[in-house]
């Protein structure tokens, strides 16, 4: 067996030779690569970098090589990620296929489904979106009402979804649908995949408090989907849905980590250091002159350090192969709250320059900060609100009794 040291050396030299220079700089929003049928590469190096990574399966390092993944074990994957961080490499591909759908498809999908979809996710050929929330089903996701009726070997889908990120740009959707209205709400949900180019689908973007956003409303009007696109068993979609949420939460918890180049929930700010920014806007040289802000920043950074150690510990602990579990709710909740604190402190740090909306008088970074500060408010709503995460921790981790079942007694 190849030693880890050898693997590190080979990886390092491969990255040296294959990662283009411009891919070793901080990511800028316009150059994030989402892949898909209509993939756009503002920077041509992004395309080269994606293709080279995908060739080795390193866009999805731990996925099985059989389906185009990297086939690396956990230790090798950690080394790869350390080596990527070492050269400040950008992610080759950012996608919901990688962070959400892929892991559950590998766990619950059948061989044909994996063979069809996984390699395209690895190579960034198909861009996925998530059909979860509905106008009447937010935190109470399981009350969803989008209907799928079996007619022959086709499902007929009717209903609507909301907060579908990038629905207007995605090629396919993984979607929760109700396939049985007669049973308790959790027992009548199925998990299904379909092409967004199908007839009867329309999307409408949603304007947020931060301005334009990737979120959409999505409408299904007699959309025909082959029955073979159902993942797992009929009416057992809720299990898959929850599993996927754990992956989503793990991804979102990364927002709280200030180091490394990860997808930041729609934010790719180059905010370097809070304290450095605060000092430069105030003209302080040795010590931040505002003692209250200084104390708050210190407290924030201490919490961030402890959180970063916790994320690492959780990775080390899951080495035994359990994958994400209920602690993902803790990480998601804490990470999001940290990210919101970071933006509030950043606003304080730069004062009125951080409150510009558009036009003259502000530089691009300042204007971006205003928008990102507003956008960060969604971090504790998307992927399950902070309150829902606390419920999950109370119930699943701490084993506290459920008020609803107690009340029914």
């Amino acid at each position: 067996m190849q030693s880890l040291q050898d693997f590190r050396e080979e990886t390092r030299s491969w990255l040296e030779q294959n990662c283009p220079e411009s891919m070793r700089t901080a990511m800028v929003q316009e150059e994030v690569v989402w892949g898909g049928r209509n993939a756009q590469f503002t920077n041509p190096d992004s395309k080269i970098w994606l293709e080279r990574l995908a060739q080795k399966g390193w866009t999805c390092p731990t996925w099985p090589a059989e389906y185009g993944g990297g086939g690396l074990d956990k230790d090798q994957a950690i080394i790869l990620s350390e080596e990527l961080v070492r050269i400040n490499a950008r992610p080759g591909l950012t996608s919901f296929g990688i962070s959400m759908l892929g892991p559950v498809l590998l766990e619950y999908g059948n061989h044909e489904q994996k063979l069809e979809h996984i390699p395209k996710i690895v190579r960034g050929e198909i861009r996925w979106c998530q059909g979860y929330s509905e106008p009447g089903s937010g935190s109470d996701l399981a009350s969803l009402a989008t209907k799928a009726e079996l007619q022959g070997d086709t499902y007929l889908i009717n209903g609507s979804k909301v907060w579908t990120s990038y629905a207007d740009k995605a090629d396919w959707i993984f979607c929760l649908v109700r396939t049985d209205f007669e049973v308790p709400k959790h027992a009548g949900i199925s998990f299904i995949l379909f092409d967004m180019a199908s007839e009867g689908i329309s999307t409408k973007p949603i304007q947020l408090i931060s301005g334009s956003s990737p979120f959409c409303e999505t409408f299904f009007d007699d959309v025909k989907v082959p029955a073979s696109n159902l993942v797992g068993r009929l009416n057992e979609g809720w299990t898959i849905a929850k599993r996927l949420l754990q992956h989503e939460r793990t991804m979102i918890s990364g927002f709280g980590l200030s180091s490394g180049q990860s997808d930041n929930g729609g934010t790719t700010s180059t905010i370097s250091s809070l304290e450095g920014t605060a000092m430069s806007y105030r003209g302080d040289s040795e010590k931040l002159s505002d003692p209250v802000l200084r104390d708050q920043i210190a407290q924030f950074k201490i919490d961030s350090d402890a959180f970063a150690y916790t994320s690492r510990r959780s990775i080390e602990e899951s080495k035994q192969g359990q994958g994400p579990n209920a602690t993902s709710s803790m990480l998601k909740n804490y990470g999001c709250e940290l990210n919101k604190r970071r933006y509030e402190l950043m606003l304080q740090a730069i004062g009125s320059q951080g409150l510009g909306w558009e036009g003259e008088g502000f530089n691009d970074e300042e204007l971006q900060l205003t928008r990102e500060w507003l956008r960060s408010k969604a971090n504790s709503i998307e992927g399950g609100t902070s309150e829902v995460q606390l419920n999950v921790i109370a119930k699943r981790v701490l084993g506290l009794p459920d008020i609803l079942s107690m009340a029914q007694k």
Partner: protein
Amino acid sequence: MALVLSEDQQLLKDSAKSFCEQIAPVSLLRKLRDSKDEQGYDQAVWAQMIELGWAGMAVPESYGGFEFGYGGLGVVLEESGRTLLSSPLISTVLIGATAILELGNETQKQQLLPQIVAGELLTALALDEHTTHRPSRVATTATKVEGGYSLSGSKTFVLDGHIANKLITVARTSGETDSEQGLSVFLVDAAAEGVSIQRTIMVDSRNSSNVQFSDVQVPSEALLGDFDGAFESLSKVLDIARIGVAAEMLGSMQAVFESILVYLKQREQFGVLIGSFQGLQHRAAEMYSEIELCKSAVRAALSALDDPEKSSQEIAVIASMAKAKLSEVFFLVSNEGIQMHGGIGMTDEFDVGFYIKRARVAQQFLGDAAFHRDRYASLNGF
């Protein structure tokens, strides 16, 4: 950096846990308090701890220790914190042995460390002189005299001062009262003439004391570390001690939290278990998250101490991070410990009160959260 315990550390932790539960439960501290025990710790229990090798946990084998690292001492401290074990573990093992290791010359190490490992020597750190911790603020003086030094001044909040054989005393040999320059450390016999030790009964029922030095004569060999330039090494000792105390706090806060969970699952009001109320569930879930962060902070800090490549500066940052974080969370959890147990939490009969009392002392000891946030900011250049 190892954030998960090794197999050996886990075994040690398990055995320390069962020792503390069986031999040194909270009722032992209660007994010491109620009987107004003169020593303030149980000598028979301490003898068993020595027997188990706990006093030599982080001491290298060449000085009679077991070289299990601070990671090993850390898990023992964590378990001792669970049951609020009152013993010389912090004063003598965590601080005394570390001070001798970091500051001492070869002769001092050869002579004193085996005594600590064998339980023959108890030490106390005489540093603070004011109501809040600031290690450079030392007015106690040491002046050169024929054959040695003469010390004068007074110290407060000296942990285990009244049972110690030797006082590790920080004194000023030059410079202004607040200067980091001009500090030296001396090993002073507790029985030396001119030393007066007054035991103080603190809220946590552990041993503390005020110490007076009036023209105390010590020989030249009593100097521990560099003359006039001890601050840097002393800071390292204090950082190790802070991390050890953070580990102890981690154990204590987990004990409180576990007690809260038991109560939430057993107490009924309005016909349901109170643990089903969201107002309590969310607070419990938030505490759980904070304690998870504390575990990681302590593991990271302990593993930094055992990593020879870490600089003193890096250790200082991580020590202040850990002490600040643990102090804040122990404050939170000890307060919630009372509130979530309701009236019973206020009774002396119930143990949770011992934890809030220990929490405040541990928070202040070697710098509270505000002290360490300030230090963390300075160390990070802002």
